[in-house]
């Protein structure tokens, strides 16, 4: 966000920030509530990461202004995500179908 943003626009942003704040608080309660359901590991993991991703996206999009950024930022993050997925994926593929892999509740 450049320095040319007007005061009126910032005032609108402030409203959004408080709405995001409320959403993050509610979603934190949801995260903890899901944990108390004592689901088995796979659905618990998927649900927990799903809610965390929504929360993370809210922070990134609104607090970090990613919803309206320049292409260079998206490019930097796009490349980072590619490497990130590769790094996580390489472990999962290396482990897939091997003996001695436990998924414990």
């Amino acid at each position, binding site marked *: *966000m*450049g*320095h040319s*943003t007007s*005061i009126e626009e*910032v*005032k609108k*942003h*402030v409203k959004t*920030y*408080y709405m*995001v*704040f409320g959403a*993050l*608080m509610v979603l*934190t309660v949801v*995260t*903890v509530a*899901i*944990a108390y359901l004592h689901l088995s*590991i796979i659905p*618990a*993991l998927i649900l*927990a*990461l799903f*809610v*965390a991703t929504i*929360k*993370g996206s809210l*922070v*990134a999009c*609104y*607090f*970090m202004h990613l919803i309206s950024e*320049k*292409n*260079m*930022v998206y490019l*930097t*993050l796009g*490349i*980072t*995500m590619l*490497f*990130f997925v590769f*790094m*996580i994926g390489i*472990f*999962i593929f290396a*482990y897939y179908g091997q003996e*001695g*892999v*436990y*998924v*414990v*509740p």
Partner: protein
Amino acid sequence: MDIPYTVEERPDTGLNNAKLGIWLFLASEVMLFGGLFSAYIFLRIGAPEWPGTMAGQTFATSFEVLNVPIGTFNTFVLIASSVTMVMSWASLMMKDFKKYKLYMGLTILLALAFLVVKGFEYGGKFSAGMFPSESTFLAIYFTLTGLHGLHVIGGIVVNAYFWGPGAKMWETDPDRFTNRIEIAGLYWHFVDLVWIFLFPTIYLL
């Protein structure tokens, strides 16, 4: 000579250098924490029991080892600090320096509160004989939360500088100062974001 592109956008990147710099730094941080997260997944799916035996006791869930209400409280604290951080920037955008001081001060206090709570959590673990060397679970728990805690300390140092002596720049170069707060904010929100993923994976799964 003035440093170029501290506030104005570079024609080739479309960004000022500070913003491109912080995003490149955050990209490296994604890989740092991502590597440790993948280590956590690796250790977890390869463990016959999790969190397992530590300090002479066997635990079936991380619930029993870690204090979920305290972890939840700290999540609220860190999210609130992210809001006060973005509000300190918004206050500068609205040319309200007093509000900036208030919100930035709150951000620092909330960050300190987070660390104090974390300190009590660590203290409780240590007094129960739960050290990183005790189990794989504790090793990755202390590594991940410890590294995150170091980031919180780093954020406090930077924010305290901008709250105190660094705030003089508001008088001489308000645009550049506002930009500095936005950049410090990007870092701080990232620290919040990491915790948003750390909390459910370590405390609740």
